[in-house]
């Protein structure tokens, strides 16, 4: 795909994000978009956000569970970029007016203390390079109409990242069984779904190692201090005005977030 076309779709996604509206699935507009093209479109979309004043602060890993991989017909995760404008802290209220068609996912976040340079990174390297882990929510959102996404659509749309919320409880992954730690997601005081770390690529550390190796091949840096959202351990929760979510990671702690206002779609 030529650079003009890449820029065209990247700009279209940037405009849709800025104006809080959706566009038709990219694959309907251009059926021949390859996965590599989709990542180039994502880079263009994120470059536009960086040019408008945001910083890249980390990465998110998506499509890490078997049901989602089966749904999209792919057999590996994808990734997107986290920017400074996406960050919320535990206890914050998220204004749904800045989102289009949001859904929440409960995850484990990693914060690195050393660079991770792939290829050749293993799960053991990930644990070694991790400063701490946190319970977190990713609020996914899609700039594609009605979430009608194929893998190329979601990758181009920054892996459908919306915003994210970091918990305050820091855990040492050397003292925590991140593979077998349970995940309990409550919505408005009721249990909505439960999960376990192993649902993410066998272990969240495997997903982070995959990302380090994938970024290594693409020449994208993976730096100390970056936040990595390792992939969903819960069912997707649609959120509306007044909802409160709590996720709790066994042996670690909780992250709590509230929502107010109305999303665009």
């Amino acid at each position, binding site marked *: 795909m030529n650079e003009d076309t890449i820029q065209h779709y990247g700009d279209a996604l940037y405009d849709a994000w800025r104006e809080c509206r959706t566009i038709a699935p990219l694959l309907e507009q251009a059926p021949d978009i390859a996965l590599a093209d989709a990542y180039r479109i994502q880079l263009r979309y994120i470059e536009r956000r960086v040019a408008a004043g945001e910083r890249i602060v980390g990465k998110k890993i998506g499509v890490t569970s078997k049901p989602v991989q089966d749904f999209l017909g792919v057999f590996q995760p994808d990734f997107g970029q986290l920017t400074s404008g996406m960050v919320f802290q535990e206890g914050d209220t998220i204004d749904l007016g800045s989102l289009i068609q949001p859904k929440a996912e409960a995850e484990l976040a990693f914060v690195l203390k050393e660079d991770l340079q792939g290829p050749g990174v293993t799960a053991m390297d990930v644990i070694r390079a991790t400063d701490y882990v946190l319970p977190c929510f990713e609020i996914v959102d899609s700039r594609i109409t009605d979430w009608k996404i194929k893998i190329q659509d979601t990758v181009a749309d920054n892996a459908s990242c919306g915003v994210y919320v970091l918990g305050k409880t820091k855990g040492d992954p050397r003292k925590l069984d991140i593979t077998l730690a*349970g995940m*309990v997601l409550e919505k408005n005081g009721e249990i909505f779904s439960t*999960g376990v770390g*192993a649902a993410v690529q066998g272990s969240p550390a495997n997903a982070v190692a995959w990302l380090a190796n994938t970024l290594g091949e693409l020449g994208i840096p993976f730096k100390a201090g970056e936040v990595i959202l390792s992939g969903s351990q819960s069912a997707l929760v649609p959120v509306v005005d007044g909802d409160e979510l709590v996720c709790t990671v*066994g042996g670690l702690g909780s992250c709590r977030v509230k929502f107010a206002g109305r999303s665009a779609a």
Partner: protein
Amino acid sequence: MSMDITLSREDIVRLCERVEGAQTRAYAIPKLTDEFPAMTIADGYAVQLELRRRFLAAGHKQVGWKAGLTSRAKMKQMGVDVPSIGFLTDRMARPENSAISTHDLVHPRVECEVAFVTRKALQGPGCTRQDVLDATDYVLPAVEIIDSRFSGFKFDLPSVVADNGSSARFVGGGRPRYVEDLDLPTLGVVMEKNGEIVAGAAAAAVLGHPAEAIAMLVNILAELGEGLPAGSFVMSGGITEAIPVKAGDSVIARFQELGSVSMRFVE
């Protein structure tokens, strides 16, 4: 039970013989409500109690109880708001890491559960989660091998209760722990079959807390005129969905903080 026993003594004995035959000789039978459409849950328990009486008379030793239908999703599916219970005997126990035969099972499926061993007697009604925790000696990881004896998986609650809550085999193992050393609701579990992860969840999937299922079990026992003796082994219900198994399959259930329980299935 809110409903009364509607079956005659003769019908209870006849249905019990039908279930006993299906369980001991491993064949599928139509659900009991095909013949008795008005059969109630209380009727189901009457058949189950007759089955237990016969097994105990034949020398089986009761080791405890199990709770079934303990997830909100399963209860909704069955149109009930309480779990079902079934009894467990020594003949259903299988050792950890052993080969379990499938030729004497109909539709075997495996579930990860937290098992409780009690050190004090519990008596309903009004038994609470805290009463259960106070009476618990220790918890351990377990796998229940359930086996519905009803053809084509067509069943309803009275039939399942009569079939002893689909109880068939169970395997306890792993690492015993005191409940006060654990946060049971957030305890993660993973079920692997032949080396592949086939299910994963946290123990809160069981009524928010596995001890809640034990409290409900004690309260159902009270309605049946019984208590839960000290020293009982009680399984609190599937945390993960039930996964079908057949001869040749190898299963391992891995629990956060509690170790693992493994077994393999043979002809």
